[in-house]
């Protein structure tokens, strides 16, 4: 492990990390922006959800590299191709969480809001979305972490990202470079994950911390509910 390589190449490492971060974070954000309206519709009109989910399941199964390749004739070997592909993937992870989060809002709460005079929109914005926020953000976390990691694959189609460190490291049989790449991707993903945890705490200050750790994952939320922690 050649430690001196790191300070010597700091600007390269930083530049690649920044580009990888852009690709991953933007994709997840776009995924969220698309998932929210779609999810709200699917939660409200139940018949929309099963076909939507079927499409989502198929898109989720498509490997990112294959998806990017399908987009190349239209968008070239560019950042755009990578971002569109990763947005589609993030969508598949975030949308089910939006729907489940909204549906998990207990009926009595909704009825209380209606009784207080909230119209449907106000109820959605002021009651249902905030209550669904932990689950939605849970999906966003998975989306961001996965997108950051997948963005490194973009280097295979020439899109600059931390994947460069893997490829150059392979070509020169240089493990140091590969380790640096691995650490940078993982650290970047963890930082974004923790930032989102902070966002969740700000947005849902009424949630006790320990229960939320379980609740941000829909399945585990079911577990938590059954254990009477909700």
């Amino acid at each position, binding site marked *: 492990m*050649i430690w001196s*390589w790191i300070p*010597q*190449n700091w600007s390269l490492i930083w530049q690649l990390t920044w*580009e990888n971060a*852009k*690709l991953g*974070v*933007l994709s997840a*954000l776009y995924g969220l922006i698309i998932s929210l309206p779609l999810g709200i519709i699917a939660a409200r009109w139940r018949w929309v959800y099963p076909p939507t989910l079927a499409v989502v399941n198929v898109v989720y199964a498509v490997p990112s590299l294959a998806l990017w390749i399908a987009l*190349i*004739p239209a*968008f*070239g*070997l*560019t*950042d*755009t191709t990578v*971002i569109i592909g990763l947005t589609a993937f993030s969508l598949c992870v975030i949308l089910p969480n939006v729907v489940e989060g909204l549906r998990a809002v207990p009926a009595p709460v909704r009825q209380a809001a209606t009784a207080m005079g909230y119209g449907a929109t106000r109820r959605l914005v*002021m009651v249902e979305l*905030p209550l669904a926020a932990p689950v939605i953000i849970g999906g966003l976390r998975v989306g961001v972490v996965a997108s950051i990691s997948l963005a490194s694959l973009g*280097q295979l189609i*020439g*899109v*600059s990202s931390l994947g*460069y460190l893997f*490829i*150059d490291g*392979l*070509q*020169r*049989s*240089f493990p*140091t*470079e590969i380790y640096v790449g691995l650490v940078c991707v993982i650290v970047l993903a963890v930082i974004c994950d923790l930032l989102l945890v902070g*966002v969740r705490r*700000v*947005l*849902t*200050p*009424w949630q006790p911390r320990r229960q939320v750790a379980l609740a941000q994952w829909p399945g585990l939320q079911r577990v938590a509910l059954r254990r009477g922690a909700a």
Partner: protein
Amino acid sequence: MRTRTATGGIAAIAAITLAAVAACSSSASSSSSSSASASASSSNPLSSGGSSTSVVVGSANFPENELLATVYAQALQAKGVKVSTKLNIGAREVYYPQVEKGTISIIPEYNGTLLTVEVDKTSTAKTTAEVDAALAAKLPSTLQVLNSAPAQDSDSITVTQATANKYHLKSIADLKPYAANMALGAPPEFKTRSDGIAGLKATYGLTFKSFVPLDESGPLTLAALQSGKVQAADVFTTTPQIVTDKLVSLADPKFNFAAQNVIPLVYKPAMNATIINTLNAVDAKLTTEALLQMDNAVITEHASYSTVAAGFLQAEGLS
């Protein structure tokens, strides 16, 4: 009230997020305009490389080429030219269209393979002088090559010392009786290149048992050769492991692979006298020995491309 605080929090976060998205999107789309597409689509050739004082130096996807690109870039920067780099783009088949369109202004090339793979597949030019002349004559109008360097990095069919001893191999022609039992390893594009599988067949009558796609004379190729996964491989002649692993590069008496001097391939409209003179000065000092030494530093000793390039330029008084 709690709801007001939460709403305020939501609004603040939404505002910050939108601002960040807007900032990132605009920089994401400007960096995607500087990387071109695989098919002939609508990227604007004037969007970069048009100014006479700013150029884009690109490189292919193997270390020696990245090194050369770094050398060119630093030499130009020392002369006050504004340079941005786009390294590790891909194989020639990927970056060549980009140079043609001007998205890349300068890329280090190898005159022989450039000629036979991209410019004129039927060319019979073999020596440095012949190849340079053929290139000057046949390149498309937007492209130009500058002076070729003395340094050569050719494809070579290489075997291990043991294989060479076993079959008494000195030149590629000696492979003829044994090729049918040998697996050949090479970069994937070797399969379709005119001096690749087809060239070996036409020039030496060789048909190998199988073709194994590996990498650009990198660790996969060398490992495959050493482990016996392939019995012969395309190893570039300035690969340091030829010396350290005692590999034998077979001679090419019939010139299947033409002369392969390092030569800058440039996008003509982006050139000016300063750039041309600087690059020619660099090439004049670039010998095979110097290139091999730099490759060794970068590949075996894992030195940084920028450090090694700077060292070379300083030693030759070019920076």
